[in-house]
């Protein structure tokens, strides 16, 4: 089982000081956070892709390559790569190059993006979001598996005799996760290809996660990739930890109350009851996280969102230290009772060995 962090790369004012980091600070902070994640023993760091303020994450492979050059072990991933508005040929080339530079220490998670105006900026239409995800991935899947591709679809200029370079490292295409909160078509897509399915599992009731993962597992088996409990599942999660629970609540509350997405809405107490957010002691975070298995089964990847809502870099790094401290408990807890036939998260090394 892999543990890691994911970020959306937002620039948000710290509500307790009124200070807004510059884009430069935020981009550099992502690198610091990733290096710290490796230092505390995490397995994965995932960066976002957005093409509008207040986000700085418009070029994920640039950031990933820079992080990869300064780390040794941690797997680079995305949260998410926009399969709708990014040309699949460019995805094949950018991530294909990244795969070579990192010696296979990368994968990617595809998402659609929910900001309407971004689509027309790239010549697309959000109402075609699902169809774009299906068609663009069908092309990407072929580009990484066939040396010469003839192709014609609805959304992109046709290809005749096209070869995406570089070819995948060791002949093994990068592993792909498909992320979606509520669209059954995407769980179906992940199942069809035998790819991973990731549910962001933050800001929403766990019932959404449960429903999507159940569909994905059932259809993964239907399409003959293995039994339902062998499907490759990843979850998000969100916590704020301090040694003692009351301190965590006191410190996090102003960030919660003013956070993008859910701020100025339900109380911290209601939201932690209604969604997987945990604000409390390390022991509380361990218990809550181990409980995710109860509704999705044994799974492969757990990523946490730590750097958002304007939390300063120093605080995020402290959160990572605490996460590092509970990591042995999380690993031991998830290993307990895990059947031998449930696979680990796919990695390049394992794929080459197979």
């Amino acid at each position, binding site marked *: 089982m892999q543990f890691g962090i994911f970020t959306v790369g937002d620039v948000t004012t710290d509500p307790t000081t009124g200070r807004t980091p510059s884009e430069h600070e935020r981009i550099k902070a992502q690198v610091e956070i990733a290096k710290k994640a490796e230092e505390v023993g995490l397995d994965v760091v995932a960066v976002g892709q957005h093409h509008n303020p207040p986000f700085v994450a418009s070029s994920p492979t640039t950031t990933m390559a820079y992080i990869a050059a300064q780390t040794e072990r941690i797997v680079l991933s995305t949260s998410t790569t926009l399969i709708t508005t990014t040309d699949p040929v460019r995805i094949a080339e950018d991530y294909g190059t990244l795969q070579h530079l990192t010696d296979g220490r990368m994968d990617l998670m595809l998402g659609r993006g929910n900001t309407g105006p971004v689509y027309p900026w790239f010549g697309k239409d959000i109402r075609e979001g699902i*169809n774009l995800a*299906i*068609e663009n991935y*069908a*092309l990407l899947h072929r580009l990484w598996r066939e040396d010469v591709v003839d*192709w*014609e*679809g*609805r959304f992109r200029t046709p290809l005749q005799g096209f070869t995406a370079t570089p070819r995948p490292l060791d002949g093994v295409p990068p592993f792909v996760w498909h992320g979606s909160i509520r669209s*059954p*078509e995407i769980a*179906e*897509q992940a*199942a*069809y290809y035998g790819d991973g399915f990731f549910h962001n599992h933050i*800001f*929403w*009731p766990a019932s*959404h996660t449960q*429903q999507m993962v159940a*569909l994905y597992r059932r*259809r993964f088996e239907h*399409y003959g990739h293995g039994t339902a409990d062998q499907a490759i599942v990843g979850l998000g999660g969100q916590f704020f930890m301090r040694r003692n629970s009351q301190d965590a609540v006191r410190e996090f509350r102003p960030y919660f109350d003013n956070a993008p*997405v*859910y*701020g*100025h*809405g*339900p109380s911290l107490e*209601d*939201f932690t009851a*209604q969604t997987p957010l945990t604000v409390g002691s390390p022991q509380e975070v361990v218990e809550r996280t181990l409980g995710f298995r109860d509704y999705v089964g044994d799974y492969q990847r757990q990523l946490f969102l730590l750097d958002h809502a304007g939390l300063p870099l120093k605080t995020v790094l402290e959160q990572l230290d605490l996460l590092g401290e509970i990591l042995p408990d999380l690993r031991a807890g998830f290993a307990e009772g895990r059947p031998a036939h449930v696979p680990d998260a796919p990695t390049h090394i394992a794929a080459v060995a197979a």
Partner: protein
Amino acid sequence: MTRVLAISAGLSVPSSTRLLTDRIAESVRRVAGPGTEVEVVDLRPFAHALADHLLTGFASGELSELIERVRHADGLVMVTPVFSASYSGLFKTFVDVLEPGLLEGKPVLVAATAGTARHSLVLDHALRPLFSYLRAVVVPTGVFAATDDFADAGLSQRVDQAAGELAGLLGGRRALHVVRDEFEDPTPFEERLRPVR
């Protein structure tokens, strides 16, 4: 058992909107007979949960149960006070958080209260277009009650007329546009890949 949910967006206690809702509910009970259960719900206690839903995108606890009751109701009575020449914000917010398709083919009786009869066209200017958009089946008679109307026997006649029309639609087969449940019965992915060559 046939179930009718009568929803009042009245805010004051006591509320003339709730009073009208109760009268319509009672009339539906009488006309539809013992096989029909009519429940009255005030939206006021859901005001905070509705605002939270606007911000988080999901319904919490009791609001989520209320939405399920709307889903399973055979008919609805929707009653709003008139605020600034239209339905109230609370009323509209509730309608806004119902997922697309939830009211499709569902019989709905629309009603409104106001301080003056000058607002009486609100049913036809605001409520009917709203429920037409949502593809509900709105009964021909709407019930509008200005303060004066509570002293007028004509109101009872209109209530009974509308209740009779709603009751008449309750047992009928709903001309539902059947939406495939992609969780229960997913479209095979090969079908979705067809436009791709």
